[in-house]
C-alpha cells in the first residue's frame, strides 16, 4: 500500500550493521562525534546511557537493541545522531548510535511503502515505511514509537 502523501520525504540515512535506516530530517537535531558516555544503572537496556550535548544531559540509545539486533562495538565511523522524539510537551531529545551517517536525501512518496506484516526482519512496530532507492531498501524508523 503506497503512502497517500504526495510530497517527497526528506530523511537522514545512516548505517546500522550493514542495513540502511532513515529518520525524518525534521526530527534530526544534530550529529556528533562519539564522546564520553555515562551508564545509567537500572535503565532499560536499549537506552542505558547518557551523554553531554553542550551542557544538556541527553539519553543515548542503541537502536539495535530496540529493533532486535545484536549489539556491536563502535567503529571509527560511528556517530551520535541527536533526534527529537514525541510531540509538544512530551518531546525529548535522544541520542541514537549510528555506525555510519550517509546523507540527507529525499525519498519520493511513490517509493515509500507501508511496512508489510511479515517478511521484515526487524520489529515492525518501530518502522514507519520501507523506501526503495535504486536497488537498496531504506527502513524509515518511527522515532516517536521507539521512544514512546
Amino acid at each position, binding site marked *: 500500500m503506497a503512502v497517500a502523501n504526495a510530497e517527497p520525504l526528506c530523511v537522514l540515512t545512516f548505517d546500522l550493521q550493514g542495513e540502511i535506516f532513515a529518520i525524518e530530517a525534521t526530527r534530526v537535531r544534530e550529529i556528533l562525534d562519539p*564522546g*564520553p*558516555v*555515562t*551508564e*545509567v*544503572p*537500572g*535503565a*532499560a537496556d536499549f*537506552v542505558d546511557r*547518557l*551523554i*553531554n550535548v553542550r*551542557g*544538556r*544531559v*541527553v*539519553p543515548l540509545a542503541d537502536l539495535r537493541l530496540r529493533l532486535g539486533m545484536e549489539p556491536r562495538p563502535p567503529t571509527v565511523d560511528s556517530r551520535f545522531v541527536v533526534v527529537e522524539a514525541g510531540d509538544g510537551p*512530551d518531546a*525529548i*531529545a*535522544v541520542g541514537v548510535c549510528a555506525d555510519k551517517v550517509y546523507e540527507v536525501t529525499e525519498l519520493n512518496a511513490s517509493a515509500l511503502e507501508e511496512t508489510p506484516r511479515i517478511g521484515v526482519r526487524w520489529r515492525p512496530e518501530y518502522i514507519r515505511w520501507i523506501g526503495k532507492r535504486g536497488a537498496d531498501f531504506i527502513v524509515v524508523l518511527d522515532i516517536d514509537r521507539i*521512544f514512546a
Partner: protein
Amino acid sequence: MSGSDPTHTYRQEAADLLEQLESDLLSLEGAPGNQDLVDGIFRALHTIKGSGAMCGFERVAAFTHHLETAFDTVRKGHAVATPELIALTLAARDHIGHLIEQPDTTNDAAGIAILAELSGLLMPAAAAPVATTWRLRIRLPRDAMATGTNPLLLLDELRELGPCTIVADTDAIPPLEELKPTDCYVGWDVTLTTDRPRSAIEQVFLFVQDDSEIQIAPLDEAVASAAPAAAPAATPRGEVRAIDSIRVSATCLDALMDRVGELVIAQSRLKQIASASSDMQVKSAAEDIERLALELRDTTMGARMVPIGQLFGRFRRLVHDLARDLNKEIAVVFSGEETELDKTLIEHLADPLIHLIRNCADHGIESPEQRAAAGKPAQGRITLAARHLGHEVLISISDDGRGLDRARIRQRGEEQGLLAAGATPSEAELFGLLFQPGFSTAREVSSLSGRGVGLDVVRRAIMGLRGSIDIASKAGHGTEITLRLPLTLAIIDGLLVRVGGGRYVIPLSAVEECVELDAAEDARTRGRSFLNIRGSLVPYLRLREIFATKAPLDPYQKVVIVSAGDLRVGLVVDQVIGNHQTVIKSLSRLHASLGTFSGATILGDGTVALILEVSHLLAVGQGREERFKAAS
C-alpha cells in the same frame, strides 16, 4: 516584549487588583469599621471599572459600576460591612474574574442575581445608624486664623456630633520671641463617638479642608474582639507594597537561571584546568571567575525566591469559604510569611497545601457544638507556619481539632490488610498508613474529602519536590503535618563519589559523615550489613550491588552515611572524591521513573554524573532493617 497589548496589561493589572480586593474584603470581615480598607476596596473597584472600559471590557465595567454604587453606601457610612455583604461582594469579585477571563461566554445571570441580592441587603441597612468612634487629626494651616477661621468653633461643631475627647498638639508652638499671635500653631487630636455618618464629620471641615491636614479614621473595632482573625487585619496593608520590585517574566528568569547554571559548569571546568596548570595568572583569573560565578549564582537564585506569604494569602479565602460550607467557625493564622522559597516550589506546593487545609477543616476541626462540649473555644484554628532550618524549609499545617484517632486507624489498617492483627506499630508507622492510597477512616465521603485519594497524592507531590512529610497528633488536641523541602531545585552542594567506573553525586545536605568500611566487616555476608556508629546500628547498602557494577573491587571501601529525618543508611562507595557544585539537570522521561536517581549533572571534565535519590535509598535501607529485625 509584552505590554503593548492593552488587553494583556489590563488582565495582569486586574489580577493584582482582584487579589488585593479579596484580601481586603477578608480583612474587612474582621474589622468592619476600618475605613482604610473600605476606601481601598472602593478604589480597586473604581480602577477595575475605569481601566476595563478603556481596554474594551465593557461588561466588566458595567457590572463593576453597579457594584461600586452599592459599595459606596458602605463607604459613606450608610451601611455596615456585615459578613453577608462581604460574602456577596466576594462572589461579585469572582464574577468579575470570570468576566475578565472569558468576556464573551460568561453568563450574566449570576451577576444580575448578585447585584439584586446586594441592593436587597443594603436598602434596609441604610436606615440603621451605627455609633462609631472616630479618630481625627486636625492640622490647620499657619494663616488659618488670619483668614477668619476660628478653630474653637470647629471643635464645638464636633462636640455637637457626639461626645469627644480633644487633645491639643502643642509641639509646633515656637519660643516666645518667635511667636506670632495671629498664626495658628496648635493642632488637635480628637476621639469622637457619633452615630452620624462620616460625611457629617467631613462637613464640619468643609471650608478649611483644602489647605488643612484633616485625617478621619474609625477606631479599629478588632481591638475589642478576642478572635484570632484580628491578627491578619492588624497587619498594615501597605507593608508588602512598599518593597521596591519589578515585574519580570518567568521565562526570562528561567533562561537566566539556565545561563547561570551553564556558567557554573564551565567555571568548574576552568577550575580543573587551572589547578593542573602552573601559570599563576591563569590560576588567579580562575579564582576570580569562581568567586564571581558563585556570587552570580547566589544572586540569581535569590531572584527566584518568593516569600511564602504569597501562597498563604490565597488560603485565607479558602478557609473562609470552607468554614461557611461546613458550618464551622475556623480562623486561619499564618506565621513566617516572609520565609522565602524558590518560585517553582511555591507553585507545586499550592495543591498539596490546599488538600491538607481541606483535611484540617473537614476532619480535624469539630463543629462549634462539639468543640463547646469538649471545652474548647467555638472557633477552631488552623495554623500555617514556615521557617528555614539549615538547607531546608519547614512548612507546618496544624489544627486544634480532634486529632487522629489511633484506634480507628489501627482498625482500618487491619481491615484493609495493611497491619497484621495484634501488631504493635509505632506511631510513625501507624500514621504512615494514612498515606496509603485508598486508606480513609472517614465514615462518610463528603464532597471535600474522605475518598482516601488525597494524602498519597500529597506525599508523592512532596517527594517529587525532593521533600518529606510527617504527621504528629494528640487525640483531642489537634494534628500537625510538617513538610520538609529543599531550599532550591536548581543548584545544590553535592558530594562526588566513585562506584566502579562511574561517578555519582550525593546531595551534601543529606550527608552526615563518611567512615571507612572495616575490611572484616566487608567480608561478611549480605544478611548482616550493619555498621556500629557510636552505639547505634546503621544499615548499609553496597552501591556496587545496586548498580550491578562489573569493575573490580577497590581495596578500601568508604561508607557515606546519609540521613533524612530519623532514617539513616550507609552507602558503600569505592572512593569519596570531594565536594562538587552540582547544577541539577532533570532526567528525561525515559529515565525519570528510576527511583534511584533524582537527576544528573555535568562534571568539570564534561562527563555526566547521576545524582542519587537519597530518600529512595533510605527506603531500601529501611526495608533491610525491618527484615533484619523481623528475622532476629
